[in-house]
């Protein structure tokens, strides 16, 4: 199994006629069993096709053409138009929205997320590469062209969540090389406010029988790691987690942002060292190097499934 998407997931691409979006559509159609990209939306381009995908002016037209509800949308429109595009998707019944666009002010993101919550929809991103279920489907640019994505991602027991799109692939590739495939890998985006945080995705992985362990990529900035630590402690998660923390050098440079907009350290809780402490307190192992991750997660899984003594802390194991 997987989380968020599977072989039957239908989705549209908003902004499909843009240069990057054309490539993205091709990649999704080519990967795995072939994504069901049932339409694209670019205002004023009704009647065109992108790699055989029909283009519409509105999401409503795409839904009408499809004949039933469309589950997802990948949004790749410029920052000034993103909020409207996401509102349009939500108000037309789309359940899962992957926002690729970067540099969206957080007020807009917060509005989108609140409307999504009100309507029971979920947002991944912004500033992310999307979701991939190895060998089955990908929704977004994650992993790149089908050939490249197949090289890095393999099916298996590890759930991957990452604030960096590129590092989602780097870590998954390292896991694959060590014989540890992924159940689902999610690039959640590098901004200060995002649709789905680690803690918000954990219940989905928790409920997914295929997933036996979680690997996350984290950075300085924000309280997302503290939220995860709290969630893990309060919910007695069955899943062991290994975290990789990048940007440790930033602790010496408060007020500066590197890599992603969300990395700015605004308080002492946002620093790399503070986060490492917090994660460790919640029983999450923090890796110093990417190449150490496979062995760490492998032994953490073995520990949870092996010893009944650990069951108290782990809340029992299904592995």
């Amino acid at each position: 199994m997987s989380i968020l998407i599977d072989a039957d997931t239908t989705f549209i691409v908003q902004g499909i006629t843009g240069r990057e979006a054309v490539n993205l559509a091709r990649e999704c159609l080519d990967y795995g069993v072939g994504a069901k990209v049932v339409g694209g939306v670019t205002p004023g381009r009704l009647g065109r096709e992108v790699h055989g995908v029909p283009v519409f002016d509105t999401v409503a037209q795409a839904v009408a053409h499809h004949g039933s509800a469309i589950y997802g949308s990948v949004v790749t429109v410029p920052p000034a138009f993103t909020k409207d595009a996401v509102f349009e998707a939500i108000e037309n019944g789309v359940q899962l929205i992957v926002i690729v666009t970067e540099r969206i002010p957080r007020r807009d993101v917060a509005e989108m997320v609140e409307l999504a919550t009100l309507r029971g929809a979920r947002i991944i991103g912004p500033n992310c590469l999307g979701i991939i279920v190895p060998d089955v489907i990908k929704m977004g640019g994650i992993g790149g062209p089908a050939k490249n994505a197949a090289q890095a991602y393999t099916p298996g027991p590890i759930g991957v969540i990452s604030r960096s799109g590129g590092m989602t692939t780097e870590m998954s590739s390292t896991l694959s090389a060590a014989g540890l495939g992924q159940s689902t890998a999610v690039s959640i985006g590098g901004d200060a406010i995002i649709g789905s945080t680690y803690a918000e995705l954990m219940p989905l992985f928790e409920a997914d029988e295929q997933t036996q362990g979680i690997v996350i990529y984290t950075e300085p900035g924000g309280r997302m790691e503290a939220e995860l630590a709290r969630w893990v402690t309060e919910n007695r998660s069955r899943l062991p987690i290994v975290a990789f923390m990048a940007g440790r050098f930033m602790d010496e440079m408060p007020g500066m942002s590197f890599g992603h907009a969300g990395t700015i350290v605004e308080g002492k809780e946002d620093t790399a060292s503070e986060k490492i402490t917090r994660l460790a307190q919640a029983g999450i192992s923090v890796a110093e190097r990417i190449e150490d991750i496979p062995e760490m997660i492998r032994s953490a899984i073995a520990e949870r499934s092996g010893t009944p003594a650990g069951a108290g802390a782990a809340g029992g194991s299904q592995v």
Partner: protein
Amino acid sequence: MRFFEYEAREVVKRAGIPVTDFGFTTDAGEAREIAQRIGGPTVIKSQVLTGGRMKAGGVKFAETPEEAEAHAREILQLEIGGHMPRGVLVDPRAEVEQEYYAGIVWDGTRKQPVMIFSPVGGIDIEQVAEEQPDKVGRRHFSNILPLSDFQAKEVIASTGVTGSALNRLVPILTRLAKLFVENDMILAEINPLGRLADGSFVALDAHMDMENEARGRHKRLLTELGVGEEETRQAREATPFELAGEQVDAQDHRGVAGNVTEFDGNLGLVIGAGGGSLTLFDAVRAHGGKPANYCEIGGNPSVAKACGLAKLVLQKPGVDKIAVMMSIVSNTRVDIVARGVIKACLELGYDPAEKIAIFRIPGAWEEEGFKILEKYGVEYADRSVSLNEAASRAVEKIEGAAV
């Protein structure tokens, strides 16, 4: 983007929140005139984007206009935390009966703004929250549902404030919340918010920080405040090297090859993407390497841009070699980056095999890229070599060369 106090106060004033009759100037003589107009005791405050003004001697009290001028002259020359002041603010010294705190910030976990209020102002709100938690009121408010006075009223009342003070404070906190939302602030704070003898309130200091990504939609306000488009208001001003990096990135709109930050080491870095750069920078330092710079490439930049960035780094004084490294790429093409960095070496008259300590970019178009690197004898690595291992090899090479 942070605002100076005099700008933040202007933003507060425009939102309909009472402020004192302050004046801003860059000239000591003018400070005297402002003090004269105010008539009575004044406070002269250095306008710098750093904390600890008071301690550093950047805030002084004057009884007469002459004294105001003398203080202004001194403060205008006073460097605080590495920053020279933008000017001075001349403020009437208000007779304050009590100092309050009002602020709005984002809660990234709840994904909503939070109003914060305290009847204990004039000091750091985090300190108040720690020492007198019952004196700090907080409340989230919706991003899409209407904002109404009762929300501010609840927050203020929860701290024990009642009577006419409550009724006078409600519109102030509501207006501050509106200002925060409408101006895309990530921080809007009035501290202290003073209650005067007649029971009225006045903002005595304000901190405002506007989200960089939203600057484009507040051009009018920024122009009226006199904020230049080139002003980054970062924790430290950009160096010429960093500005040159911005120019490289701006030469065309394909991908990113920039976000350069200067350091003083000998190993030049051409690294990417966002997360990869952070990981690689840490790795270089963990192996005892001394980076000459931080940067980011990604989003499939042109050959010209990759070349421009590599040239910039190669020409930086003190740089012996460059390391070209990225996490596995899917959008950026390996061969394009390879072409760019080799071109940079050749155009500067260097042997790429000598100047490029290592090239570790696996992913899209890697076969083509590796072929080019092979032709020039550059050491390269595929995905079987970790980011950490690549960084270690680069450091080894440069340290070996330095000995």
